[in-house]
């Protein structure tokens, strides 16, 4: 069985502020897309797994112990943007989606 990977364009890199995110709807899935300080992008699930609201894209982006993280605006848990692991609660995690920038366009695989 072969799987086709589909990259979906969600916005231009310039639509995102450095170290800030935005929500995108990709194949019915709510994705939080972030632009890091070096113009790399990351994509994770937009839903806060502990509180249920779709708000992860509105969190503060930064680092913790050298790992790139986003902090939930609900109750401040930090999530690793590369692995989705919650650094404050081992039981919680975000789904991680592949993301890249191609010709100034942010693309995500999800859904």
């Amino acid at each position, binding site marked *: 069985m072969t799987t086709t990977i589909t990259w979906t364009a*969600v916005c231009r890199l310039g639509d995102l502020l*450095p170290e800030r995110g935005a929500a995108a*709807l990709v194949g019915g899935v709510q994705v939080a*897309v972030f632009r890091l*300080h070096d113009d790399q992008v990351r994509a994770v699930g937009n*839903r806060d797994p502990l*509180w249920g609201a779709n708000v992860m894209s*509105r969190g*503060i982006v930064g680092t913790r112990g050298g790992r790139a993280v986003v902090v939930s605006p609900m109750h401040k848990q930090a999530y690793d943007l590369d692995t989705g692991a919650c650094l404050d609660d081992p039981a*919680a995690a975000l789904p991680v989606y592949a993301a890249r920038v191609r010709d100034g366009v942010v693309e995500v695989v999800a859904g």
Partner: protein
Amino acid sequence: MRLVVIGNGMVGQRFVESLAARDTARRFTEVTVLGEETRRAYDRVRLSAFFDGVSAEELTLAPPGVPAGTTIRLGEPATAVDREARVVRTAAGEYPYDALVLATGSRAFVPPVPGTGSPGVFVYRTLDDLEALRAHAAGRSAGIVVGGGLLGLEAANALRLLGLRTAIVEFAPHLMPMQVDAAGGAILRRRIEELGIDVHTGAGVTGIAPDGDRLAVGAGELTLGADLVVFAAGVRPRDELARAAGLPVAERGGILVDASCRTADERVFAIGECAAVDGRCYGLVAPGYAMADVVADRLLGGDATFGGADMSTKLKLLGVDVASFGATTGPLDVVYADPAHGLYAKLVLTDDARTLLGGILVGDAAAYGVLKAAVGGPVPGKLADFLSAGAPDVALPGDAQVCSCNAVTKDQVLGAIGAGCADVGCLKACTRAGTTCGSCVPLLRSLLTEAGVAQSTALCEHFAYSRQELFDLIRVRGIATFSALIGEYGTGRGCDVCKPVVASILASLGGGHVLDGEQAALQDTNDHFLANIQRDGTYSVVPRIPGGEITPERLIVIGEVARDFGLYTKITGGQRIDLFGARVEQLPAIWRRLVDAGFESGHAYGKALRTVKSCVGSTWCRYGVQDSVGLAVALELRYRGLRSPHKLKSAVSGCARECAEARSKDFGVIATETGWNLYVGGNGGFRPRHADLFATDLSTEELVRTIDRFLMFYIRTADRLQRTAAWLEALDGGLEHLRAVIVDDSLGICAELDAAMDRHVGGYADEWRAVLEDPDKLRRFVSFVNEPQTPDPSIAFTVEREQRVPVPLGMPEVSA
């Protein structure tokens, strides 16, 4: 066994607690405490704090409830002790005893001169005295304090706080004659006069005569006019019950007891200020506490004795540092006097200069803790360092007493730190150190630091600086961006702790719109979307209604906006209207409607001024004496948008009835007949605190300047998320220091603070309107970057009590 305790003052209370803690076998099944005052024991040492806005309840020493078997009868003074029948009599009944403890304290001494019974003549001993004094002082302008000792200076400062022009009359040739010599007294006098208090020394009071509505006070050669007179010229032990019961008293008064605090009657003990241990009375609380513990031990068969006491004192009148400890004259006095800087220090040493016996510090008492603890041993460091002001770094011996009120040693404090105490609050709770007069708190703090457990002031893993240090770096170096700051002074890329802090500092320093450039990435989500995020990810919008005043037309607009956008509507505690359930992409449209109707949205979120509440004031209210609404509107408009370490709340009441609850606010204003009283450092919430009275009868202009400086000083120096209450409590020197800085400009920064506030006020712009006018910012308010027209499908509402409320969110499964 039955025990009767006469007196529920500081020492009587300590005794009851001490006994209850030791009497585990319940030997005393029936304990009766008779108290003349109508309140339970309170902290008399901090009595003056009552005029700083600390309430009578806050001064209470007694924990709620009483130990089992104990009855406390307040307002029921003992009238006689019948030693033969072994009963104590009161107007209401008789109380038999097997053991009796007298803890009747002292009374204020009033010299036998004519006219001391006139209305307007007071003493300074009980809360009732202070209440009467305050009531009488209302609307009057001048007061005289008789007595220039510790107590007199405290009373004089209190009159000053009540807004009276104050004079001190002292019989001796200089102030604080018991502690300070002539040279020290002269320097002290200057300091006191700088506070605006007149000092007349070498002047005994000869009499008081009513003079119309006022009093004419004869003082030496002078006749002084005043509205009231306070006698603070010493105390006399209350030994009258003991005398009448035939118990021996000391030559100069005081119930004679031996080192076990027992009187000539083996069933009767005396403790505290009423007791003369081996003929000597002690007018301080620490020796009284020691006596209480001795008697508790003795009554249970122990053999404790009272071994004399540390008579160190420190004037609790910050801004004027005076302290004396140990002997005040001795074989060898080493004196340093610097009248130009108002400094005086004297150390008393043994002949060979090897042993410290005591000393006096005027002008700067920073070395008090260290020196006091060193009495009886060598001077802990170079003599010159102590004499020329300041507290050099030296280690205290372990058995040195850190808190003399509660006899707590350095070792006990270190023990508590070892057991896990990591802050002053915990040390207070675990050791009692610092709970009485509070003068050892700075020492406790430095012991914590020395022990290495003081919480690191580093903001987070990215910055080794405290908020205050970052503020100064940014201000002094003129740093304009987070990148520049973290590049030069930090590590990593920042986080949810340091980014909002830096955003707030930049905003306080006038950094333009909160969403400009790089600043946008620093803001907490509420500041980023200029609204309050709710549990379902929608926002609430709270239009600003300055002072809570609103026209019917505008009220209707709010109703229409709420109706048109289907927003749940609720009146807030801050006299505004909160509109809930706005999706992020709806926010600009809602603001547009509000802006068009002349509103701005409000900072109901974030670390900034929230609201200035008001009562209706003199315009309508029969009791109002000033226009509280007008002032509240002006204050809210002045300080709106001001970013601070934590939220700021305020209120203005139009009269002393205080309907606006101003004393629960960070800064609260209460109208007086002639102006405004300003209170600072209050809050409700998790740990409620009443604001402290900071200044009285200010004109509107003075009031506004004082608040400007208070806020700016707070913004510059507070820790992250430290409300003004906690900030003030942690501020070295407390309220007096704050006064020195923002009223007397002791740090020379008032002009800067004023300029900073003027910049804020001049630079304020409606942040919501600015978003509407900037397409770049507006673009961020969408549900999805790739489908801006599709609302978040997970947001759903149901109806409750006729309004839309969120459907509880199902918890999605957690992907492991």
